């Protein structure tokens, strides 16, 4: 591993995995942690427990802000384990000189999103550090949720599952990249940042047999599918044509040489459900504005163990890898 921590090690991809396994897993090793789920399942399977820290530049971006992101991120991790978010903590590290007005604005967005999830903040912490020690504001949220359905796990996907995506992919990553790098595009593109609690509740209440769920945050859909292929020791065969990508994201990817599959999402999730429940799951998802374009994207097979393959509509295939490195525009 590198002697210094590089940005690539926080990309949600291969280098990030190496950092986590060689330093954190090595030190903290235990059965719950090693399941590497979105949230830890504790208390005899009754509770889901998760934490996430948020840093984003710019703080306010089309579609959301760091406050909404901080609540959605943790609540979604809980929801992905079939849990209903209940209690959150909120810790903020603020840079000296930060605007109080902006802080209020961020906290208002958090409040609004907590209401969406029917969750409350029950503990918190604030630190203010000298100018330059953090980039404006970092937020950590930790959450506990009540598990509604036990046994949801990305380690249990089998060949009788199909894989669905809840909406078009890559919006958050593309939005932030464009905003951060000051690429002057006239675009209506917005982050997909949203809470997924209601969709998940509806799926579970209707009795859809959900094997696994994961929100495709850093590393995008590629990272999720690769993690699943490895954790469940399966091959995931993705129909490239079926992956929904908006015009805006498609354009940005073509221009900068990105793959939409590698871009982050903040309100888009991947589900593995039993084949027979595919239509039922899609019907439920289609009832929500945020997932009205949910669609099946992949089958599970045993062809190439622990690999994800992309099938083109003209009969070729290639491996889809875990993203590596920092997200950089390709020159050629």
């Amino acid at each position, binding site marked *: 591993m*590198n002697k210094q921590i590089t940005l690539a090690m926080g990309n949600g991809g291969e280098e990030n995995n190496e950092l986590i396994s060689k330093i954190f897993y090595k030190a903290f090793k235990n059965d719950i942690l090693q399941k590497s789920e979105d949230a830890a399942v504790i208390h005899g399977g009754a509770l889901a427990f998760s934490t996430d820290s948020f840093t984003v530049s710019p703080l306010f971006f089309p579609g959301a802000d760091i406050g909404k992101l901080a609540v959605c991120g943790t609540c979604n991790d809980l929801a992905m384990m079939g849990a209903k978010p209940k209690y959150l903590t909120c810790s903020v590290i603020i840079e000296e000189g930060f605007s109080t007005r902006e802080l209020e604005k961020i906290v208002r967005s958090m409040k609004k999103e907590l209401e969406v999830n029917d969750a409350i903040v029950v503990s918190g912490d604030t630190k203010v550090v000298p100018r330059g020690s953090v980039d404006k504001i970092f937020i950590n949220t930790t959450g506990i949720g009540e598990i509604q359905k036990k046994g949801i796990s990305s380690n249990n996907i089998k060949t009788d599952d199909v894989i669905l995506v809840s909406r078009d992919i890559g919006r958050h990553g593309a939005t932030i990249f464009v905003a951060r790098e000051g690429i002057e595009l006239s675009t209506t593109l917005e982050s997909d940042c949203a809470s997924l609690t209601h969709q998940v509740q509806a799926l579970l209440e209707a009795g859809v047999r959900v094997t696994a769920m994961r929100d495709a945050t850093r590393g995008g859909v590629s990272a999720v599918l690769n993690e699943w292929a490895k954790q469940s020791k399966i091959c995931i065969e993705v129909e490239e044509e079926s992956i929904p990508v908006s*015009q805006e994201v498609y354009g940005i990817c073509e221009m*900068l040489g990105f793959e939409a599959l590698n871009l982050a999402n903040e309100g888009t999730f991947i589900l593995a459900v039993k084949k027979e429940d595919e239509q039922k799951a899609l019907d439920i998802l289609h009832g929500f504005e945020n997932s009205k374009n949910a669609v099946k994207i992949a089958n599970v097979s045993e062809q190439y163990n622990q690999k994800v393959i992309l099938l*083109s509509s003209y009969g070729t295939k290639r491996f889809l890898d875990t993203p590596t490195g920092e997200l*950089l*525009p390709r*020159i050629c």
Partner: protein
Amino acid sequence: MSQLQLKDLYDGFRNPEVIEGFAKLINEEAKKLPKPINIMEVCGGHTHSIMKFGLPQLLPDNINFIHGPGCPVCIMPKERIDHAYILAELDDTILVTLGDMIKVPGSHGSLQDARAKGADVRFVYSPLDTLKIAKENPDKKIIFFAIGFETTTPMTTSLIDIVIKKEIKNIFFHINHVTVPEVMVELIDSRDEHVDSYNNRIDAFLGPSHVSVITGSKIYEKFPKEYNRPVVVAGFEPVDIMEAILMIVRQFNEGRCELEVEYKRLVSYDGNKKAQALIAKYFEKASLFKWRGLGNVPQSGYRLKEEFSFLDAEHIYADILPKEEIEDHKLCICGDILRGMAKPNECTIFGTACKPQTPLGSCMVSSEGACAAYYKYGNLLK
């Protein structure tokens, strides 16, 4: 009227039926080929498309691709990355370059590593974005580490043009622009020191499209005439590449050896004369440019003309920039791979000492390199 969408512009060139149609035609024509042919796609953009769309899987066994040296990031030698690294570490300096250049390791590490250690390294999408950085940081020196083939060269010269006309005092240049025809000549006409041989297995070239938009197709004329290698200039979409392959196969079957243009929608014979004039105004050819994996190639790189040396970081910082050559790894066979004489997995350090995360040779540096592609996609490749 419905709005024209970007996807509309691409879709035709990615149409499965058209791709399958070309695949069928190529497979039929290829039956008549007197011997198997190896087509070198010179440009990294083509390699990327070929890999991304899995095109080798659609072709018969007697048509092979040799992945060329046309990725400006991959071929950047350690010496020049070390220059960038040293410049980036200077006080009150911002090193600016294009996208994925920052991930390629030199002998001290990559520019990403330099940045992790505190250097101010930034990437821009367009060289002209450097102007904004310079304006926002008037008390810092901005060094633009310019890279790329003929396609990106005019953008650098546009930036130089503005810097001179507006008398901007804090932008400097480290020029690493390289040119395509010279390295094509090198691959088919020079001695490979590793194996002491002039051999190569390149039978035809797929000419880079965007380079040709600037230079015109005329730069490839000598290949069919003097070197007996057909060239078809092709676009980057799968339909473009498939059509160009069909054109090459037909040339062999009909006993022709010509320069043809598939990418007629953008490429003319003479190219973009305004861009060419701008390049000629500020740049001259350096006698040698070293390519990672290939060594020194005569007349293959640009440098600033002497009258503009006040902008030239290589001149200004001559005292601190090392001039010694750094040998490519002794066991690296990138040169052979680029000439089509060896496959990546025949290299003794392939996948062991040389991996995508720790590349030694140019072919492993980016996803466009032949070795990196083999490493990643190995058992799905033909």
